[in-house]
């Protein structure tokens, strides 16, 4: 077997992977990126509306800072997030955006003078200051206290990904395209690279690396209706799971985006609502204020999606040819605004629905959108169980999103995590730990195992079809592990998935075409996806509470007393059909923001006894500082985090009006 | 790293377009002068004398016409050589291009291919025409030209030339605009459609004008066939004579 040696192997060529690769390469480590597709085609490109970073430049953002971004994110996560990591994230996000601005992303800028905006269905005029003219502007997004989503029209992800890819090319980082990692090579405690399949020739080869970073995105394709790209099958998370050592965190935390077009399931950005768009029902009634008087259409995604499904269930959905849906109305924003700031939305409506959103309503219904869960890492991005394995972006559970991610925080996470994890990979490689002694025998053993697995699929004659089983899995997940979950349905899903897993061992291939053989690809991916689906369904079944996007109709309350814990799933043995679940408690006593009401959604929850104690502790810590203490000092007194960041990312962020 | 590229490419590209533009302007002007025959033999006689310099020097110098013919020939040669760079240079390229034309349905690519074909034809037709102009500059006039057209059977050459040169020129002008000043902005598509419509109108106009003139020369030539070789004597004093 051909073996390629490198210092750093990054699996995944999206924003997170490429930024981590650039970070490692800059520190002098040879880095190779593997990608299923050409890097610029990664799913990062599909991020439309914006990237959250508290620059505070435009009027709607004035007064914004890391503290507000932090609080929004923690509330959004329904207190499931790791608050230290959220602090690291919100502190670094402005730096990430400024770095990208220097590298060439054409962020939309503040235009001085009067503008007409749409708020709460009404036109209003605001005036931007001269001082802010030409700085990066931002738009309103759900669940945020300020206008914080920096954007490039509605092609934000595209512009970011192209700039990032071009910088990676400039840095001379090779991207091995159409390569799929099938297994991580490890000796039980140390990850040493991956066995990789060439998706053009079908050949297997091995990459041996001192550090391996998984940045393969989410696993949305375990669902039938998903906004995700077809490559988002979670193979990175799956191969980590298959080590039996690395754990996956919070796999049951799946986000459903409120506005996917019906029936294609293609996303139209949250920016539609951020810019003033409304949700209407069959009667043309704007229903969100009835449910969420505070944030209305701009509550967090989990809440809006749930309210939409609730409203449909109450009989207010539009009967369409593809089932029930609701309307997204952006007509009130006007032609000029749509053609400038929502042109991708217009294009999607034109090509897939044959309508013009300037004149017509857009049929929407919530669809699977994001995986908050993923490979559990520490704050440096390394797996706590498998040394040398790192993860960044959606494939990781670094845990800034907890049980619900805020819109615009995903692309922000990719780049920020890429910056931080890239650095920690370099630190790891520079340290004695980074030394790697790996025997060819070990590499051959893993290669042989994968070769046998592929041969096993090819020679099976049980008559099962990979495509058919994939469809059944997706239907099960969309039907039983969706927005509203219930113990019975989840139990049913777990059983079905177990059955599917047995059937997947009996797949027969109809084609033995040389080369990649798409049918073989579907077959081996299915076996891995079933494990991820099972972690999701089983985790959801066990979690007898409602938190963020995980809503149990039979346990509708958030239960901090029992469930302020992160689910950790490992796969005990290759032949197992259920994961082993373990739980990691979130310590309220170290939290800067103890659990409470999110400001939207249900107010009712079961509190943890530590919550009150921590609140007192916080008051006591802040009291001696008095009112004169600045926000940095106050924050420092509650939860110091700067020491967790790489030194060059620790400095404060300058904002308009600050002394430089 | 920057490799240094010579200025030659830029100059050749510009020169190809400029020579083409000049040739188009020439041929359009040529059409108006030639079609003076539609206004009568006298008008055409006056035009031909004018180009022999009679208004300027008091008597005609046909050599001036030869000189102009040579200049045009040189311009054509320059244009042809520069354009040849863009023609398929090998049988492989020719095959690739042909396959491309077979696979892709695209109007402007077809227009360009029409230019390649007409350009190839003009490669033979223009020298044939210019040869007579340069060697027999004095034989341009209402009767001399008409005799050549009819009695010497040159109308076949001229008919072909008329068609090819105007197709080549009209498409050329449209493509020249697109090449150097393609419309931009929200109206770009509409402007281009107008340009193209303009191109067809110009083409139709010159084909009509040219056909009418050619038919007139043929008629005169037919009527004058018995006394072919005889030169035209204007009824009145030549226009512009001192």
């Amino acid at each position, binding site marked *: 077997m051909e073996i390629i040696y490198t210092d750093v192997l990054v699996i995944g060529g999206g924003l997170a992977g490429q930024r981590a690769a650039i970070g490692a390469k800059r520190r002098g480590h040879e880095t190779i990126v593997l990608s299923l597709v050409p890097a610029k085609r990664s799913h990062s490109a599909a991020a439309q509306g914006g990237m959250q970073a508290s620059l505070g430049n435009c009027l709607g953002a004035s007064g914004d800072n890391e503290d507000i971004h932090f609080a929004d994110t923690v509330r959004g996560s329904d207190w499931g997030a790791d608050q230290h990591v959220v602090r690291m994230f919100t502190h670094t996000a402005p730096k990430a955006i400024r770095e990208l601005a220097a590298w060439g992303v054409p962020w939309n800028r503040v235009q001085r003078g009067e503008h007409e905006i749409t708020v709460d269905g009404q036109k209003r005029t605001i005036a931007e200051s001269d001082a802010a003219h030409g700085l990066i502007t931002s738009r309103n997004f759900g669940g945020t206290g300020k206008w914080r989503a920096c954007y490039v029209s509605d092609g934000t992800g595209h512009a970011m990904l192209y700039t990032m890819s071009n910088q990676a090319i400039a840095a001379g980082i090779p991207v091995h395209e159409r390569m799929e990692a099938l297994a991580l090579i490890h000796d039980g405690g140390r990850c040493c690279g991956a066995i990789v399949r060439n998706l053009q020739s079908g050949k297997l080869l091995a990459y041996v690396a001192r550090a391996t970073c998984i940045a393969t995105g989410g696993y949305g394709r375990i669902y039938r209706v998903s906004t995700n790209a077809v490559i988002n099958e979670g193979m990175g998370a799956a191969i980590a799971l298959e080590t039996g050592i690395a754990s996956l965190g919070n796999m049951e935390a799946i986000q459903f985006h409120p506005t996917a077009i019906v029936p294609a399931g293609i996303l139209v950005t949250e920016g539609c609502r951020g810019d003033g768009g409304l949700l209407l029902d069959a009667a043309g009634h704007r229903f969100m204020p009835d449910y969420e008087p505070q944030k209305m259409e701009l509550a967090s995604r989990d809440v809006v999606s749930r309210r939409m499904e609730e409203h449909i269930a109450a009989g207010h959905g539009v009967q369409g*040819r593809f089932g029930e849906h609701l309307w997204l109305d952006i007509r009130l924003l006007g032609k000029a605004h749509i053609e400038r700031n929502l042109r991708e939305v217009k294009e999607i409506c034109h090509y897939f629905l044959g309508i013009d959103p300037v004149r017509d309503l857009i049929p929407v219904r919530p669809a699977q959108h994001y995986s908050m869960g993923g490979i559990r890492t520490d704050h440096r991005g390394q797996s706590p169980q498998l040394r040398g394995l790192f993860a960044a972006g959606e494939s990781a559970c670094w845990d800034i999103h907890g049980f619900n991610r805020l819109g615009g925080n995903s692309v922000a996470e990719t780049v920020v995590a890429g910056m931080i994890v890239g650095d920690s990979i370099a630190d790891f490689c520079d340290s004695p730990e980074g030394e790697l002694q790996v025997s060819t025998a070990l590499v051959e053993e893993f290669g042989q195992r994968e070769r046998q697995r592929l041969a096993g699929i090819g020679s099976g004659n049980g008559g099962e079809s990979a495509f058919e089983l994939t469809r059944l899995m997706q239907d099960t997940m969309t039907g039983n592990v969706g927005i509203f979950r219930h113990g019975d349905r989840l139990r049913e899903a777990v059983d079905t998935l177990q059955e599917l897993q047995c059937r997947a061992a009996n797949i027969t291939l109809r084609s033995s075409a040389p080369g990649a053989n798409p049918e073989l690809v579907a077959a081996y991916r299915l076996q891995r996806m079933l494990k991820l689906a099972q972690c999701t369904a089983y985790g959801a079944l066990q979690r007898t509470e409602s938190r963020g996007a995980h809503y149990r109709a039979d346990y509708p309350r958030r239960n901090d007393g029992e469930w302020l814990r992160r689910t950790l799933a490992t796969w005990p043995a290759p032949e197992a059909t259920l994961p082993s679940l373990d739980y990691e408690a979130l310590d309220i006593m170290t939290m800067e923001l103890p659990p409470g009401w999110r400001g939207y959604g249900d107010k009712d929850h079961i509190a943890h006894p530590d919550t009150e104690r921590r609140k007192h502790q916080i008051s006591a810590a802040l009291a001696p500082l008095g009112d004169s203490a600045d926000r940095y000092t106050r924050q420092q007194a509650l939860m110091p985090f700067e020491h967790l960041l790489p030194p060059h990312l620790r400095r404060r962020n300058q904002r308009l009006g600050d002394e430089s | 790293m920057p490799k240094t590229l010579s200025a030659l490419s830029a100059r050749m590209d510009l020169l190809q377009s400029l020579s083409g533009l000049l040739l188009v302007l020439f041929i359009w002007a040529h059409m108006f002068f030639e079609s003076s025959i539609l206004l009568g033999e006298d008008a055409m006689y006056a035009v031909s004398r004018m180009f022999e310099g009679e208004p300027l020097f008091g008597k005609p110098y046909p050599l001036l016409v030869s000189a102009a013919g040579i200049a045009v020939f040189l311009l054509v040669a320059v244009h042809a050589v520069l354009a040849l760079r863009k023609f398929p240079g090998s049988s492989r390229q020719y095959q690739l291009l042909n396959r*491309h034309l077979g696979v892709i349905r695209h109007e402007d690519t077809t227009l360009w291919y029409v230019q390649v074909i007409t350009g190839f034809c003009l490669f033979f037709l223009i020298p044939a025409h210019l040869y007579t102009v340069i060697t027999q500059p004095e034989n341009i006039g209402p009767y001399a030209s008409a005799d050549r057209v009819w009695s010497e059977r040159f109308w076949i050459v001229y008919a072909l030339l008329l068609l090819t040169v105007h197709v080549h020129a009209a498409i050329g002008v449209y493509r020249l605009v697109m090449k150097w000043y393609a419309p931009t902005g929200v109206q770009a598509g509409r402007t281009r459609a107008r340009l193209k419509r303009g191109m067809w109108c110009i083409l139709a106009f010159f084909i009509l004008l040219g056909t009418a003139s050619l038919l007139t020369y043929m008629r005169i030539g037919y009527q004058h066939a018995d006394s072919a070789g005889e030169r035209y004597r204007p009824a009145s004093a030549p226009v512009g004579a001192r």
Partner: protein
Amino acid sequence: MNRIPVQEVRRSLQIRILRHNPHDPASKPCLQTFELEEAESMTLFIALNEIRQTMDPSLQFDFVCRAGICGSCGMIINGRPGLACRTLTRNLPECITLAPLPGFELIGDLSVNTGKWMRGMSERLETWVHQRDLDRADIDQLEERMEPDLAERIYELERCIECGCCIAACGTARMREDFVGAVGLNQIMRFRLDPRDERSDADFYALVGDESGVFGCMTLLGCEDYCPKDLPLAAQIAFLRRRMVATGA
């Protein structure tokens, strides 16, 4: 309210696909016809997947975002380059012929290696912001200001998704394999417009001032007419040509 046109009678589609697997020595390029019943709102993405799942599992094609954003699924659809994922079958006749994009290395059937070509183009034209000490940029301070209008004009050109349709539609690219194509020339214009890029016109001339660059373009306008993102390619190339003539000649 529902303005989506309803199609009453289901058509039977004949989809002819130019098939070839270069990894199989026995494979010869040939057209294979698949028949399938048209469904509501069927795109070529749906149709091709259905063919693969129910008729021929070896059929190769590329889709990623299936939303017209990533540029993976460029192919020749009835003689016109376009994105298959957002092509609705109801806008096509019953007989649909699909072929891989020409001008790129064939991976198999409808799958071509646009990624390799585009990476080569990026490396050759250095499609990134050239600025001294870029890796030491101060990211703690306020960002450099930019005119809002300029940012939007850069984005207008940045919208290219490198799908390869312009290369497939280009007669010049067919004859000259080293031609950078509209995608490359557009990149030059994008970085030329960007004040963060310190390169001069002379630097750009060194990159595209010859027959493999802007002077190779024969203005066939296939790029302009088949760009799925409606980029103003003809106007950009015309402008670049004028600038490069002014610089070089």
